[in-house]
């Protein structure tokens, strides 16, 4: 154990130092984290205090785990998070949980992994989960899940994004669905009575709202370095997807497909032909949200849980409208399903894995979900109508949310799609043509997408596919 700890600290210190000096380095020595060597140890059997028969806190060894779930000091849900954490401490006296900042970025997470300081429990988003499974930095928890009586509580398909080759790597934590938020007041002033259902209608609506409400923006587009996030919806609406997962696990790029080119042309038209988007197309996601909740923009794309943000920032709930995506040339407008998982470090010892799993399942219990929902309801924070478990009915907690808002969210979620495969690695390549057409009136969508595809193929996909094929021995 001593050797393990020393090596860990050494690597952590080195990584920190190397980042500080701009030369990305880390200790080249062995990591000392040898789960195989430690696998002989028996799990501690971290039974809850109430179920223990003979003074577990004195007899059983304390297992310490690190969890990246400490809420930010100004988080609206800080109190309820801490309440649940305290309940866990009382229920599991032989598990000591060290809570660390939950707002740490994926970059910090990778630095922690490289430095041997990977938290025992962390919460990656759907796209990050795919990336981390590929990188081998999440533990296979299939046995723990299959042995858990709670497995069937989760909704169908909830484990899909954390499953690879039949192995499960994460426990579903949250889910959301996306659509178009609109400002009812601005629509009313513009005399708009029916919501846009197609791309053409959407552009016309944005133009009318903008003209009838001087000083406002018809539609806040996302052109910053997350621009591919919203752009992919338009590719779906045009009948395609940015990438395609092949049966052998390799990935095919579809940047130059007709659907992608059509979607990018539509982006270009919104900016240069219809002129319904903001001048600062590169502004941040938060700035887009700010435009919407301050009444500066009439429409914005957003997730079902963004309602909390808008109300939290003082927007009148009665003016918040939500609608499914207008359909594109393919006649479809699926909603994006996003969310996050609980995951466990593969370097964690069997005792720690068990303790981590106990913690995750405690936080995924019916009581924990309901405590959080009740807190949100009591504090007017709004409730995400989607949940990852079957035994919690969110409709009991949505009092105060406009009924049409809820029905629109449910309608939007009727057809759903997951984000494009390998998004984390390909994002910069997709964003480049998006920014080009939004900033340069003369940029040709097909030319820009061709260049991006060639680059991504050479710099990301070729290596990825080679690794996949070599791993599978093909």
């Amino acid at each position, binding site marked *: 154990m001593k050797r393990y700890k020393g090596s860990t600290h050494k*690597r952590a210190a*080195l990584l920190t*130092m*190397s980042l500080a*000096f*701009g*030369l*990305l*380095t*880390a*200790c*080249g*020595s*062995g*990591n000392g*984290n040898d789960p195989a060597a430690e696998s002989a140890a028996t799990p501690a059997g971290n039974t809850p205090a109430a179920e223990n028969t003979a003074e577990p806190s004195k007899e059983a060894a304390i297992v310490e785990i690190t969890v990246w779930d400490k809420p930010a000091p100004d988080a609206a849900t800080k109190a309820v998070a801490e309440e649940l954490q305290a309940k866990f401490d009382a229920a599991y006296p032989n598990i000591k949980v060290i809570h660390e900042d939950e707002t740490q970025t*994926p*970059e910090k997470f*990778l*630095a922690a*992994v*490289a430095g041997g300081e990977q938290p025992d429990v962390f919460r990656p988003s759907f796209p990050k989960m795919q*990336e981390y499974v590929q*990188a*081998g*930095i999440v533990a296979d928890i299939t046995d723990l899940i299959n042995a858990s009586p709670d497995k069937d509580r989760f909704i169908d398909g909830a484990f899909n994004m954390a499953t690879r080759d039949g192995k499960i790597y994460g426990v579903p934590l949250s889910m959301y669905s996306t659509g178009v938020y609109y400002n009812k007041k601005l629509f009313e002033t513009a005399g708009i009575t029916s919501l846009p259902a197609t791309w053409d209608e959407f552009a016309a609506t944005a133009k009318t709202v903008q003209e009838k409400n001087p000083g406002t923006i018809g539609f806040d587009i996302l*052109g*910053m*370095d997350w621009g591919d996030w919203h752009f992919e919806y338009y590719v779906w609406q045009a009948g395609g997807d940015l990438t395609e997962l092949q049966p052998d696990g390799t990935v095919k790029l579809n940047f130059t497909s007709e659907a992608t080119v059509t979607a990018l042309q539509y982006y270009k038209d919104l900016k240069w032909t219809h002129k319904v988007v*903001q*001048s*600062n*197309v*590169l*502004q941040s996601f938060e700035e887009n949200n700010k435009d919407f909740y301050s009444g500066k923009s009439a429409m914005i794309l957003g997730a079902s849980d963004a309602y909390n943000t808008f109300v939290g920032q003082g927007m009148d709930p009665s003016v918040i409208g939500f609608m499914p995506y207008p359909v594109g040339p393919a006649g479809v407008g699926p909603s994006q399903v996003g969310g996050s998982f609980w995951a466990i470090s*593969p*370097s964690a010892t069997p005792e720690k894995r068990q303790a981590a799993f106990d913690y995750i399942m405690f936080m995924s219990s019916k009581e924990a979900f309901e405590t959080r929902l009740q807190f949100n309801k009591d504090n007017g924070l709004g409730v995400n109508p989607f949940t990852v478990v079957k035994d919690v009915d969110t409709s009991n907690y949505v009092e105060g949310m406009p009924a049409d808002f809820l029905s629109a969210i449910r309608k939007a979620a009727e057809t759903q799609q997951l984000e494009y495969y390998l998004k*984390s*690695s390909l*994002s*910069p390549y997709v*964003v*480049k*043509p998006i*920014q*080009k057409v*939004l*900033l*340069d009136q003369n940029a040709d969508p097909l030319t820009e997408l061709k260049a991006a595809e060639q*680059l991504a193929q*050479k*710099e*990301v996909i070729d*290596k990825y596919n080679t690794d996949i094929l070599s791993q599978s021995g093909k």
Partner: protein
Amino acid sequence: MKLESSPPLKALPAPRTRFRIRWTPVLFLLPSIIVFIVFKYYLIFSAVQISLFNYDIVNPPGRFVGLENYFVFLQTSTFWLALKNTFIIFLLSVALTFWVPIVQAIFLSEIRKANGVYRVLYQIPSILPVVAGALLWKWMYNPDSGLFNYLLGKIGLGPYGWLNDINMTKFAIVLPGFFASGGIGVLLYYAAIKSIPAELFESAKIDGCGPWRRIRSLVLPNIRFVILIQFISFMSGALLAFDNIFILTKGGPADASLVVSLLIQRSAFEQSNFGMSAALSFFMFLVIALLTVIQFKLQKEEN
């Protein structure tokens, strides 16, 4: 009479110097030597080591790939674009900002009254953290609600895209340095100018040298070494610039401001390719080391 040649004089033995370690200087130097070895050289060697592997952050170091990481990035157009952007930003920085503290120091050396106040004023911009400064500039550049477009609009100019304009981004990144490039550089140049004997200035004046001639023939040659040292530091700072670019543009729009340091970050933390990231880091280390050596050689030849 035959003169007998006297026996050759025996060379006197050189006074024996005993090798003695003076412990006091060693003790003073030791901390910095240790810090340099641990925090600089060891990291450089580690970077070289990591760059030779398909680095596996879970089970380091992963598969040995030799120089493959170097060959791979040298063949990507993203790297060459980033390198080109890096040097364009560096050259723009030289043109727009490097000379500013020299001019400030020359002016400062001519000021007699309240000289100390001016020196403090020149230092204040350097107190502002880079991140805070960059955020402030980002706000001022906002094409919709930024200060610059507002003020320029008052005189009938603009609106400009600033960071939103692919052709203007690099200039907009460098521009803040023009206004806030003083700091410690001004004091170094000022101290160097003040160390030039006053008699030289007096005799130059008697000989009829005007201010421009005094600067060209007296001041600049005498502070040349400080300029060289400052230029090397400036060069490595500009070629490895990260924080201000990350905050202002994150390499955008459309990679127009993607520099090698951002590519290093992207390789490591967005693509989990630490081997490639280390290879890029070491490459930049070599580039800067080479440029520094060339700079010193040129200076030596000139001397």
